[in-house]
């Protein structure tokens, strides 16, 4: 059982990708997440479970400084990305570019399928057509969408079906060549078959990318996550190896109640 020690110095070991210390997130006066400290290791899938309104989505938003585009959201505490405090990064766009995000509701941009995936490389200044072609094919393939759309890359990404748009969103996140992938309840608008396909993709991906996955499906966390954190009412209740959370060797009664479906 790994219980985070808030007083411990940020881990400098190379296998920690993301280190969060004393993170508090507020909207206006009201704190929605209080004093969270946890570490995410390189190449793991880190699950975050908890009932709606427990601060999971806000937590993800704070990791790539998306709080800054909101008028009301404010963040205290530190987040170390590859050992670097993200709030000291001078070019936030470089930071965001290294962190891929997938939303609960798929957002296919109103561009062609090709341009949806080529957008990020283009923004980084890649103009070479064959490099772009290669990136588009690789990312769409990895996201298990290539076979379905390879003959109509000129169609609008925003008009694909929900499940296809979600895989397009994943392909787009992959086109950023991210080091960290944030998934926020990605299966909400997706049918079960597609969900299973995406889960397979994620298992593959963790060889290269660190993944943080927020889910309200407890079983999904069990299937995918190496370690899991349980958020409740704006607090981190505990964090540990996923199997331990599910096999009952947890310390907190609330976690046991939640994973066994007694509330939430």
């Amino acid at each position, binding site marked *: 059982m790994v219980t985070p020690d808030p007083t411990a110095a940020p881990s400098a070991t190379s296998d920690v990708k993301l280190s969060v210390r004393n993170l508090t997130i507020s909207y206006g006066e009201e704190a929605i997440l209080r004093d969270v400290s946890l570490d995410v290791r390189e190449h793991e899938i880190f699950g975050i479970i908890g009932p709606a309104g427990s601060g999971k989505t806000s937590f993800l938003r704070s990791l790539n400084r998306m709080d800054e585009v909101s008028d009301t959201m404010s963040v205290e505490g530190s987040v170390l990305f*590859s*050992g*670097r405090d993200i709030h000291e*990064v*001078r*070019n936030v*766009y*470089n*930071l965001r570019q*290294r962190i891929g995000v997938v939303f609960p509701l798929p957002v296919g941009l109103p561009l062609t399928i090709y341009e949806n995936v080529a957008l990020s490389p283009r*923004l980084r*200044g890649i103009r070479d057509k064959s490099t772009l072609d290669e990136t588009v094919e690789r990312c769409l393939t990895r996201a298990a969408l290539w076979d379905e759309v390879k003959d109509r890359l000129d169609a609008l990404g925003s008009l694909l079906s929900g499940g296809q748009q979600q895989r397009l969103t994943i392909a787009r996140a992959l086109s950023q060549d991210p080091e960290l992938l944030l998934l926020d309840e990605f299966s909400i608008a997706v049918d079960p078959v597609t969900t299973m396909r995406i889960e397979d993709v994620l298992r593959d991906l963790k060889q290269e990318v660190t993944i943080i996955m927020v889910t309200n499906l407890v079983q999904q966390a069990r299937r995918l996550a190496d370690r899991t954190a349980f958020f409740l009412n704006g607090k981190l209740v505990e964090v540990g190896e996923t199997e331990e959370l599910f096999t009952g060797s947890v310390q907190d009664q609330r976690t046991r109640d939640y994973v066994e479906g007694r509330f939430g």
Partner: protein
Amino acid sequence: MRRSVGDLDRRGRAWYVDKAVAGLVFIGGISAIVFIIGIFVFITREGWTFVFGTLDFGEFFTSIEWRPTSENDPTYGALALIAGTASVTGLAMLVAVPFSLGAAIFIAEFATGRTREALKVLVELLAAIPSVVWGFIGLAIMNPLIIDLFDVPIGLGVLNSGIILGLMAAPIMTTIAEDALKAVPDGYREAAEAMGATKWQVIRQVVLPAGKNGLMAAVLLGVGRGFGETMAVLMASGHSINLPTSPFDSVRALTATIAAELGDAPRGMEHYQALFTLGIFLFIVTFCINLAADIAVRGVRKG
């Protein structure tokens, strides 16, 4: 390929372009403020020596003698001009307010589907007719009509320009009033309908009270429009200095006076400055009207 952590700090071209654009559009944004201040500054610049020197405020507001071109004793009484503007605007509102509010209620609450769309487009097109065309209509169509109907020697005056101005202001008021009614949440209507109220009861007891600030703003903007209208009033009012006692009297409006006389007033002369003074007066009054309308609308948003 691993990128180094230090790369996170590198600010490339995109970063600088973004900052530059943010600055540029900010300039665009505040340009509206710059222009409105510029308008005030430049009309004041041309008129202030007169305002603080020659102008007798008592005379300006109480005398009907507007004789700026008199050789030995020019007088600048704007009362008749103010009365002209007020009478024409007043009549216009008398015509336009009931009709445009009625039309707004019909379009927003009763009309449906294609009828509604068609009416909206028609009203929008009416609002686009240029004021000089309205003035022409006043001269060429309304004038002979009024002469025939009422057996008067001349058809240019309060009645003619009031009706023209009413027809001009009505589409704008209709559009704004309709928006105000549409802004009343459907939930209000549904709640009242669920209690068994008829459509008219819903309108009278729910929609109109909820939208009244927006309707007031519509009327105020209509007044502002009438007050500031120039060409149509110049052409249809007869343009003679008068305190009107009947709808057939010819009057002269503040705006029309500027339009008619500025061409003959040499720059820097008292007359020229007096016309800019009228402009300052118009600017201040319309500014207050617009401010009042804005406050009325804001009341709706808060409520």
